[in-house]
């Protein structure tokens, strides 16, 4: 009865555990990086044996396939690409060894103690024959769990604490996104450098622009007056927010236009007026920007009236009002652009 009496689980466990730990130690002790990779292969192979032994066949096969067959091949590939003679074996200093040994052994002691300190971990399962096929062989159950259907914990003894009612559909799906991003990143890092890189940090510092720029009087005057007008409009908006025009009563404006305006403002939502004020302020800033020879200021000056028109159109004031406002606001901008493009040399050509 010798063979039958042998606890095969214990025997195989011992075998795999010794191989795993032994070659793990070999990984640490050898200084030759290729051998390190080889020992790591054997170590991880033995670990997959332990997975099989614990009943996790799918994980074991996965470990062989992805870890040993994929990741480690990749590592060895890296080793070979960098395996110049002087890098193959790099020795670790004695001091580091001693330190590593001390810290490592104390950590190991702690972890081993921890491993034996919980009772439910220490005691073996005695009723192994009660294990059903569904519990023991897990690839179908894993497949179901990856589609978020957990069949393993439908019947935990404590109803309240049925643990792990967690289907793994989301991780399963989202990890693919991760792999995609990571592969792009790895490809980016591993690609050879391109010629003609055009990054800001790789360009030489730009030459200083010519300092002696000049501008016709009309442009300067247009910019200045634009600033003043916009500032006034902005102040006006703020003033209207602070002291709304009365539509009726004694204070009601007699001027027909003002009355219309007051009614329009009253009809508009409360956020419109402050926003318009801010936009006028933005116009002032943009004019300053144009003053300082920046082309994008002009772009901004075109965009701001369009935004105003869009905002007004989205309220109850109607699209006609919006178009009117846009036209009124755009007219000076067009004038400004014409001014900028006139003269010799044109102001536009001197701008950045």
């Amino acid at each position: 009865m010798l063979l039958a009496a042998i606890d095969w689980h214990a025997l195989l466990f011992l075998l795999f555990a010794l191989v795993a730990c032994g070659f793990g130690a070999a990984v640490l002790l050898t200084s030759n990086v290729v051998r390190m990779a080889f020992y790591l292969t054997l170590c991880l192979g033995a670990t997959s044996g332990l997975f099989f032994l614990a009943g996790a066949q799918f994980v074991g096969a996965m470990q062989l396939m992805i870890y040993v067959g994929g990741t480690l091949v990749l590592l060895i590939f890296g080793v070979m690409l960098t395996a110049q003679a002087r890098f193959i074996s790099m020795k670790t200093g004695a001091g580091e060894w001693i330190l590593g040994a001390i810290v490592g052994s104390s950590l190991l002691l702690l972890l081993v103690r921890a491993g034996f300190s919980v009772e439910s971990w220490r005691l073996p399962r005695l009723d192994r024959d009660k294990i059903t096929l569904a519990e023991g062989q897990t690839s179908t159950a894993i497949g179901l769990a990856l589609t978020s259907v957990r069949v393993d914990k439908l019947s935990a003894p404590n109803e309240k604490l049925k643990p792990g009612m967690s289907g793994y559909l989301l991780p399963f799906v989202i990890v693919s996104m991760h792999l995609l991003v990571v592969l792009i990143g790895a490809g980016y890092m591993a690609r050879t450098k391109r010629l003609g890189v055009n990054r800001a940090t790789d360009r030489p510092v730009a030459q200083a622009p010519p300092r002696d720029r000049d501008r016709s009087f009309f442009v300067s005057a247009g910019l200045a007056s634009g600033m003043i007008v916009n500032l006034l409009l902005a102040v006006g908006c703020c003033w209207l927010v602070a002291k709304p025009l009365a539509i009726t009563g004694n204070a009601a404006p007699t001027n027909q236009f003002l009355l219309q305006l007051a009614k329009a403002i009253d009809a508009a939502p409360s956020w419109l007026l402050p926003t318009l004020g801010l936009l006028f302020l933005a116009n002032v800033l943009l004019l300053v920007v144009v003053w300082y020879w920046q082309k994008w200021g002009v772009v901004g000056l075109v965009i701001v009236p369009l935004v105003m028109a869009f905002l007004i159109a989205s309220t109850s004031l109607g699209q006609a009002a919006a178009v009117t406002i846009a036209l009124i606001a755009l007219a000076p901008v067009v004038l400004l652009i014409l001014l900028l493009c006139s003269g010799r040399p044109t102001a536009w050509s001197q701008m950045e």
Partner: protein
Amino acid sequence: MLRPPDGLVADGITAIDMDSFPPPITVSHYLVVGAVLFVLGAVCMATKRNALGVLMGIELVLNGANLNFVAFGSRFLRQDTLGLDGELMALFVIVLAAAEAAVALAIALNFYNNHTTIDVDHADDLKG
């Protein structure tokens, strides 16, 4: 072959009890292997000068943790387990580790291209 033996009790060989040799394998034994791998990996990370050696240390660490997960989830080792969570987490860790290794390797190769060395001790441009 590698199916854990569950037969001893049912086979009538109940004579083997807790104290006899060999002791039945429990979660703790798996944890010891996991701890050994973890510590070896950690020390490997700390002492190796070759960047790829450091990466191998990381693989060992992750495997130690994975072994724990599988042991905690195994029906054969104890009654009330982590369940499939253990195996599934191990699966995802394997996948994530593969992704991480790919990136780390690409970075190590990039380092090698720029420094013509793979010795992490030479990575000392940045300090202060």
